[in-house]
């Protein structure tokens, strides 16, 4: 990569009725996490697509995407070797019959990179922070569970793929620790856009873009209070997961704590 990506800018296009979108521009800076929300069929994936192909008024939405305030050169748009964007789609399967560690090695080689010693181990360790069930380096790729595959892929995108922009389509259905996943990605200084229906995830971002009828209708900066609420929602979820774990272990559920733990909540904000 010749140039570092500092930010991308979305310039308005039209919604599905042909009406111009009502905003001047949306800047997304390095290290930011943006949620894209809206009803099913509202046009969330179209926005991801526009960004993925660095649209220049040549897609259905007529949006324009700038990179570092400039129109990206054609090379960046059409040469997949220089593609800036990695996407994690909802359906994600492996097909190669190979061990986890050999697979990561193969991926490194395909990128023309020399492996820094220990990198593969790091990728697996980081994946294991994201998934509940630890992945062994010797495990066959095809035998990984859905959560393990996804965790491995997220760690791989963070550590091996060079793409500075990551598009994620609905991470919540995957059985992984999503906050940890986002943290892993953000630490690498990437731009992250997540299509999501998950309230705690949507509120745990820098901004959220609201989409309706194929157009961007609103851009909200996440408030501090909302981040606190996200933390609260998260707590509820992990509490519920704890109960799930107990049920799986065959325990009896005798009572439920339905209040938040205020001390921890305060610490966070």
């Amino acid at each position, binding site marked *: 990569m010749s140039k570092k990506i500092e930010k991308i800018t979305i310039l308005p296009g039209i919604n599905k009725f042909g009406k111009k979108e009502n905003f001047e521009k949306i800047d997304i800076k390095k290290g930011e996490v943006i949620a894209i929300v809206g009803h099913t069929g509202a046009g969330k*994936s179209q926005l991801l*697509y526009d960004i993925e*192909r660095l649209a220049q008024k*040549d*897609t259905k939405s007529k949006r324009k995407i700038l990179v570092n305030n400039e129109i990206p050169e054609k090379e960046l748009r*059409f*040469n*997949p*070797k220089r593609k800036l964007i*990695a*996407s*994690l*789609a909802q*359906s*994600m*399967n*492996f*097909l*190669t019959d190979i061990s986890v560690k050999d*697979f*990561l090695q*193969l*991926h490194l*080689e*395909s*990128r*023309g990179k020399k492996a820094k010693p220990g990198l593969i181990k790091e990728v697996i360790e980081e994946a294991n922070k994201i998934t509940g069930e630890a992945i062994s380096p010797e495990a066959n790729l095809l035998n990984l569970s859905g959560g393990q*595959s996804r965790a491995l*892929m997220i760690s*791989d*995108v963070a550590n*091996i*793929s060079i793409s500075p922009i990551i598009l994620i389509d609905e991470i919540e259905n995957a059985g992984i620790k999503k906050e940890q996943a986002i943290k892993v990605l953000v630490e690498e200084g990437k731009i992250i856009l997540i299509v999501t229906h998950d309230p705690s995830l949507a509120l745990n971002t820098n901004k959220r873009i609201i989409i309706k009828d194929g157009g961007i209708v609103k851009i909200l900066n996440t408030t501090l209070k909302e981040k606190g609420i996200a933390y609260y929602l998260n707590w509820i979820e992990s509490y519920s997961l704890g109960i799930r774990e107990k049920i799986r272990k065959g325990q009896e559920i005798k009572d439920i704590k339905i209040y938040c733990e205020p001390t921890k909540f305060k610490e966070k904000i």
Partner: protein
Amino acid sequence: MKFIIFAGTPGSGKTSIIKYIIQELKNDFKLYFAKFDCLRTSDDEIISKKYNIPTVKKLAGELCPDHYTALEIPKLIKENQDKDIIILETAGLCLRCSPYIKEGLGINVLDITSGSPERYGPILTDADVVAVSKGDLISQAEREIFRAEILKANSKTKIVETNGLTGEGAIDITEHIKSSSDIGNKKLTLKHSMPSALCGYCYGNKIIDEKEEQKRATMGKELKNLIPGLNCGKCGYRTCNEFIRDVLDKKIKASKCPYLKNK
């Protein structure tokens, strides 16, 4: 006129992505779509109805579909001098073969779930553009590995990731089509010679046996020398080869060929 050939294994998603490409191009260019297949297809009718462009169906039947395609290309061009772009979809069976022509644009639709690109022959190694399909089914890392393997097999090709369901990538392919050169009035040349097909089995031999095969091949060649090879259709067959097979199978008399009658 531009001549675009789409090749790829059955089910790789050629027709799906072609539909989006036709949608993108049809308002600005006069298009013609030729669908080649082996036995049956209705894609030509579906496309004609949906996009209101002229199409044709070409079924190879008893012939090798790629040989048949090459035989039909001159006719297609002759009959469509008023068109801007001819889009041809091959039956796409053989990894060894590919009827790409040097003067046109050859596009290989490559199904990412179909295994390593390493095993593909000219269908991939001679393609000007590789349209990778079904990438949404597998992981980002595998997509990147796949891309590297394609470039290992064909370093000059341009890779486009496509999705036949959403039309993703269709615009990129139309860019390649628009910037490809016109075929002009030159004689067209195949990028790669096709595998030869000269054995007794080509003449319809069914018994797996060396002697039977050789016998049939000799008989076939003898008969072939006697007829003019015009593919005139007067015998009721589209090609002389199909006629010869049935003569050797004793399904029809050799005298049905008007040129053999007097010999």
